């Protein structure tokens, strides 16, 4: 479909090569397996393909068509028009990883600005060029803890408030290693203090989430002190939107900050691609996984940017590399960089405050409904777990019948919470939508 050759070109090229037919180029392929018929649908033109895709897309219900209160790691925030107009520039999206800095300064400087903004938001000294998503960034934080403690400490304590998908991802990554992942049997209702008791000489890392999977916000200052006293590291998985409002983890002693950057200008897109945040302190920069961009000068004395610290990486170190990471998610990091540039200092705070107010308005009303209550009285940002009078699945069904995409049925990820909905709110949820939710939930009790 996108092959430009005319028949004349093809013949001339075959002649230059010194073969008569195209088939001759493939004689190294075992004959019995050469040129299989592929059982695929017949090729469509662009016009027909678009029509097909439109039809498939229309079989989905969108959060634009129905109000949604789903969060749990992906949030429906507003994406300003400029973000996508920049992302659609071919100079960005059809470039490769910037190995040749002389002709890649656009990508490199944008990543440098991204790293700066992530450092600013998280209160860390340095950020990498981004990673796949929040879950894989958390897994890389565990890898980092092994590099920093030189593999001498193998225990990792994961808060029960960490997103269950993130925990599962960490367990997958550490399948073939010495790392012992603990903390799963901790009572989610217990605060961060419960993890202090688990600290010992073998602990490499403690990982918490901020706000946590249940939406709760804790001050981790005491935990950080205890972790450091035990010679371990504290890693904090964040929602960067919440950091528009809340104290950055750098202020309460985090050593590594990871997170899901999707709220910063990235569409929901049924789960990806999203943006993995990975940042750390000065002293651990050389153990930071993934690509990193640094400032330097060129032969003409101009300030410019390059990929740096590559001696940590797989293409140099091969089997001795800390991680096998090859790419980041540069284009999504660009989306976040443009988003942050557009909303700026004031706007990020405003979007965060709007989400906060909407969630607190809803929480107050919902807690007052008979049969419902808030699971936790801990402060929260834009998400909270609501105890429900009936199984959440039934309630969500009722909401869907009323044209509402409800919250997460928490039992699908953590089976102990049978009657609980995790509800999230952003600036995209109007008061009218929230009132409809409240009304529909009230009906369930009748």
């Amino acid at each position, binding site marked *: 479909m996108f092959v430009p050759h005319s028949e004349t070109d093809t013949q001339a090229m075959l002649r230059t090569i010194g073969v008569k037919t195209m088939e001759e180029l493939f004689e190294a392929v075992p004959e019995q397996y050469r040129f299989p018929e592929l059982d695929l649908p017949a090729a469509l033109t662009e016009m027909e393909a678009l029509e097909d895709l439109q039809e498939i897309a229309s079989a989905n219900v969108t959060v634009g068509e129905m109000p949604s209160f789903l969060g749990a790691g992906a949030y429906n925030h507003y994406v300003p028009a400029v973000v996508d107009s920049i992302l659609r520039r071919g100079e960005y999206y059809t470039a490769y990883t910037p190995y040749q800095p002389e002709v890649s300064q656009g990508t490199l400087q944008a990543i440098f600005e991204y790293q700066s903004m992530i450092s600013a938001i998280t209160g860390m000294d340095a950020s990498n060029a981004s990673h796949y998503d929040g879950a894989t960034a958390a897994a890389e934080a565990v890898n980092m803890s092994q590099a920093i403690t030189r593999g001498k400490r193998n225990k990792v304590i994961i808060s029960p408030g960490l997103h269950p998908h993130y925990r599962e991802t960490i367990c997958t990554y550490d399948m073939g290693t010495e790392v012992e992942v603990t903390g799963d049997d901790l009572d989610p209702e217990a605060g961060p203090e419960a993890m202090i008791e688990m600290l010992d000489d073998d602990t490499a890392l403690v990982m918490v989430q901020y706000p946590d999977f249940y939406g709760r916000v804790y001050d981790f200052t005491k935990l950080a002190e205890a972790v450091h006293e035990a010679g371990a590291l504290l890693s904090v998985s964040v929602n960067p939107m919440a950091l528009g409002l809340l104290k950055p983890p750098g202020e309460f002693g985090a050593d590594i900050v990871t997170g899901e950057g999707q709220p910063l200008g990235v569409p929901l897109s049924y789960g990806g691609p999203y943006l993995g945040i990975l940042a750390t302190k000065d002293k651990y920069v050389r153990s930071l996984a993934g690509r990193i961009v640094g400032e330097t000068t060129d032969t003409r004395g101009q300030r410019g940017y390059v990929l740096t610290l590559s001696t940590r990486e797989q293409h140099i170190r091969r089997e001795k590399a800390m991680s096998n990471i*090859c790419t980041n998610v540069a284009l999504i990091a660009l989306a976040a960089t443009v988003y942050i540039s557009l909303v700026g200092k004031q706007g990020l705070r405003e979007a965060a405050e709007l989400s906060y107010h909407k969630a607190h308005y809803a929480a107050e009303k919902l807690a007052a409904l008979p049969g419902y209550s808030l699971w936790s009285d801990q402060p929260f940002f834009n998400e909270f777990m609501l105890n429900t009078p009936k199984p959440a699945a039934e309630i969500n069904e009722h909401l869907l019948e009323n044209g509402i995409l409800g919250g997460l049925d928490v039992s699908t990820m953590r089976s102990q919470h049978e009657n609980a909905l995790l509800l999230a709110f952003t600036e995209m949820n109007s008061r009218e939508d929230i009132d409809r939710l409240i009304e529909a939930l009230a009906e369930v009790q009748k």
Partner: protein
Amino acid sequence: MIEPLIYDISSPGRRAVRFPEPDVPTSDLPKDMLRDDLPLPEVPELEVIRHFTRLSQLNHSIQTGFYPLGSCTMKYNPVINEDTSRLPGFTQVHPLQPEETVQGSLMLMYLLQDWLAEIGGFAGVTLQPAAGAQGELAGVLIVKAYHDDRGDTKRKKILIPDSAHGTNPATSSMSGYEVVELPSDERGNVDLEALRSECDETLAGLMFTNPNTLGLFEEHVLEVVDLVHEAGGLVYGDGANMNALLGIARPGDLGFDILHYNLHKTFTTPHGGGGPGSGPVGVAEHLVDFLPGPIVEVVEEAEAEDDMPVFGLVTPEKTMGRLKAFHGHFGMHVRAFTYILMNGGPGLRKVSEYAVLNANYLKELIKGTYVLPYDRTCMHEFVVEGRLGDIHALDVSKRLMDFGFHPPTNYFPLIVREALMIEPTETETKETLDAFVDAMLQIAKEAKEDPDILHEAPHNTPFGRLDEVNAARNLVLCCEWPGNTRKAGEKS
């Protein structure tokens, strides 16, 4: 030529986007938990647009010029992909919506799994891996899960040819395996004798790239696969070079047990300046239960012929685990789906045929001037030595930029001295290839007549060579703003 940093064009009180006033009563903010300062830039909308537009103009890209970067398959990324993946029905869907509200997404993923399985000759495919390197990780962990499940715990060793990508050994050691490197023979194939001597009861598997990174089809592929299987090991295929094999040969037919696909190479999802990629993994029948979940299956057959079945997310029975949150890079799935839909089976075969034609054409015209260490018909790419007297592959690469070309991959694979790895792809015209050959020949001429022009290249690019040593020694990873010291890492 330099563009100021976004922080340098910030001015207090400026802004672009505004948000509406709250339509709900406001609540008290948790005072003790609020941050004091948020050091982010303040820039008006037009300046943001100009800044990122001007920055973009400093990039080389497929849309602006030839990009023969070996092993990366920098071919045309159809613009229609960017439209289909942005249909609101795809972008405005939350990953945790009830399955009955996302049947469109699930059907697309189901069909893409099915098509990739057909293209690779496999029984099952997962779309979850976020990139090629993660597909590799999935592949190696499937090897591990398979042996563990059989109680076969003495298998500690993964074989990797010396021509392999660096991600292969990194992935294996990440997964707790011992890496044993296999030499290549004089025709660029895996050395069969070396392989034979490593095939014992400790062998977990072989990571095998075919065509290999020399761009050569492994002439003993069937023997290699047999040897590994006879020793009880599994063969994992690195699908980085699938652009040579569409409709040409199916790795599953050749006996590969596992393969990862790079949707961002073979199936035209854009590279994005370094991601997001997407690295689905296909496996043979005996490994389907070990795939990372979730995958999409038909959970309820259609009642009538014209009805749609019901699709659902399912976690395979003995899954090796989850690789990331949610279901993979769905936006990339839509793009690859669009591409396959527009090509069909014969179209995909044509893709690989012309990728191979273009590579052989270039090889033929360059090989008299640059040393071609393995002179046989190549597949979609080939490797020459970039050494010309005291001129290095790096100099050739930098000088190519002056002619408006992106350099080939250089210094890889490691087994070729001063390697230049050239992959033209099928979407380039004969005229473009001819112009590239002219530039390569001109550079060889300059190497004799005026070598300084090469040592000092590039000359016509917005930036000259950058000081990478200084960048690593005096780390600056972050902009300056009031209160920030602009330093990170060890001080020099």
